[in-house]
């Protein structure tokens, strides 16, 4: 292996090699960090949200001429929707789920304020059909009863109910020392001030809070802190949200059916654009997808440009050194010796580049760690990236290197 002479030669003609090394280093550093972040985004997108995303849809409806007592009217709407064949269940709900926004409340498990046990949870409000309509499993305790659902008059701000359903993660966070089954029946206290407690009547499987995709320590910890209250709010003309769950495959058809039924019940309805839960989730995750796509595109372009750079420099070198190549052949180099020369040169350059690049990648990772909320990167990514660059470098240099082997020995004897 002619490492020494190749190194000497490169050192005496530094510019090209330095440029390629830098490109390789930067590309490695960027690609590694990009892949890491892309992975993070995809993980975030893949996190289970806890409800039946594919089969639920939400309608935001209001009445232009509202009766004073909305309770029977809403109950009737709900009954009618539930009766439609193909609808698994329906519930009234206070706001969109998994939309990146929503209400949040803080509770503490002890009556004295001033302890660090307060947890903030994402909250929503449903009726007694809520769990089934959302597709959330009840693990311990019981669901709301029909008589526990509060129907406050419009424009009134009613206090919290006496009962609540919470997720398993939240239950364990409130009472880390208890068996989960024993948490049923315990109470929690709202806010910072000593007020009436709320009883935990049931514990459900985990549902994602609205901040599940946020970039913060809090969001990590509280990702599945979720509470359901038995209440039907009607803010003035904001209308109400009806959520219904359909059998698989029937969603499109049933969205039309539900719309028709609602118009049938009250022709002067106002409809906000009907949305499926899947669409809402899609929109909420836009940011994650966008980051992944942007990073992916730039990484790809960078790899391409570096590859072209290697091809370019290698071609240039072959052209510049045609005479030298011919001379070497005249002196007895076989074709594979010439090929090996260029491949070894390329491997050397790539090696220097990836060593620099690995250090740079780690440095960048530390910097990102300080400005974004991300976990530490696994070191397995670096060798993977390094391998890619070796393969890339090899593929890029192969063409020019093969051309070099085709230089005839007789070239050496031509005069300039």
């Amino acid at each position, binding site marked *: 292996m002619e490492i020494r002479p190749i190194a000497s030669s490169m050192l005496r003609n530094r510019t090209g090699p330095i440029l390629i090394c830098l490109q390789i280093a930067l590309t490695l550093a960027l690609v590694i960090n990009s892949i890491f972040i892309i992975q993070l985004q995809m993980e975030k997108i893949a996190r289970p949200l806890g409800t039946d995303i594919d089969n639920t849809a939400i309608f935001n409806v209001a009445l232009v001429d509202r009766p004073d007592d909305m309770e029977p009217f809403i109950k009737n709407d709900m009954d009618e929707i539930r009766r439609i064949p193909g609808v698994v269940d329906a519930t009234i709900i206070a706001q969109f789920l998994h939309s990146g926004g929503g209400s949040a409340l803080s509770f503490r498990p002890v009556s004295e304020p001033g302890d660090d046990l307060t947890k903030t949870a994402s909250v929503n409000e449903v009726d007694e059909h809520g769990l089934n309509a959302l597709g959330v499993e009840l693990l311990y305790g019981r669901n709301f009863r029909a008589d526990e659902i509060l129907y406050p008059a419009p424009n009134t701000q009613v206090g919290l109910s006496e009962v609540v359903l919470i997720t398993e993660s939240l239950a364990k966070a409130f009472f880390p020392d208890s068996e989960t089954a024993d948490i049923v029946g315990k109470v929690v206290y709202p806010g910072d001030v000593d007020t009436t407690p709320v009883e935990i009547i049931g514990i459900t499987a985990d549902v994602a809070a609205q901040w599940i995709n946020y970039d913060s320590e809090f969001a990590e910890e509280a990702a599945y802190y979720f509470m359901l209250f038995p209440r039907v709010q009607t803010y003035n003309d904001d209308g109400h949200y009806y959520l219904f769950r359909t059998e698989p495959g029937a969603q499109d058809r049933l969205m039309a059916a539900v719309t028709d039924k609602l118009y049938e019940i009250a022709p002067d309805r106002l409809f906000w654009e009907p949305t499926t839960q899947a669409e809402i989730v899609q929109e909420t995750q836009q940011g994650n997808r966008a980051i992944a796509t942007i990073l992916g595109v730039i990484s790809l372009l960078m790899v391409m440009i570096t590859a072209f750079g290697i091809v370019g420099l290698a071609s240039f070198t072959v052209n510049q050194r045609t005479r030298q190549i011919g001379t070497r052949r005249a002196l*007895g180099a076989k074709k594979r010796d010439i090929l090996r020369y260029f491949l070894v040169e390329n491997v050397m350059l790539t090696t220097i580049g990836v060593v620099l690049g690995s250090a740079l990648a780690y440095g960048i990772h530390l910097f990102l760690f300080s400005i974004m909320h991300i976990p530490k990167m696994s070191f397995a990514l670096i060798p993977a990236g390094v391998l890619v660059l070796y393969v890339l470098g090899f593929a890029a240099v192969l063409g020019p290197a093969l051309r070099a082997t085709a230089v005839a020995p007789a070239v050496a004897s031509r005069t300039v």
Partner: protein
Amino acid sequence: MLTMKGVSKIYRTDLIETHALRDFSVEIGDGDFVAVTGPSGSGKTTLLNIAGLLESFDGGVYELDGVDMHGLNDDDSSEIRNEQIGFIFQSFNLMPDLNLFENVDVPLRYRGFKAAERKRRIEESLERVGLSGRMKHLPSQLSGGQQQRVAIARALAGSPKMLLADEPTGNLDSLMARQVLDLLDEINREGTTIIMVTHDDELARRAKRNVHVLDGKVDDPTAYQPQQRDQPVEVIA
């Protein structure tokens, strides 16, 4: 040492056929010092290339040391070039990015010698040409004459059976040219066969023997003829 009988070389393009060598025959013995002369375009460089296995030939027989050189594959001819033949070019053809030591090292690495062996040979041949004090210098730091001497050292380092020199003094002034020729003389006296292509009459005179080439054929294989350029030949019996 080297025998050619009826060797021909044809360059073909779409439209033209050029006979660079036709029915070329020559015999060169061990220890010979032959100057190949002739006008430009006569085919002497082609002859050297074929002799040095830099190019293939189309017809005839070429034997080197009794071994048939026809139809050799690339690997084999490279090996023979590496082990048995040394080249000296008009434009030196040193690697500009390698120092003298590394330059002489080039063919030795292809030989497969161990490091110690290579070092010994390099130091010996650079000493032989009088440049062992400049081993770490780059070719750009040397004069033309010195560069050619390095090239000679490179050609000698592998102990070749014959040296092929193509206009070795073409790029040198007369003083340097003389030095190079002296060196070649010495090398020849020590036993290495030398075939030298030149269009310089004075140089040709210093060789033991001349072969004059004209239009791809040997003009007069034995006699020394002080020729004027580009004039038709008269055979002197």
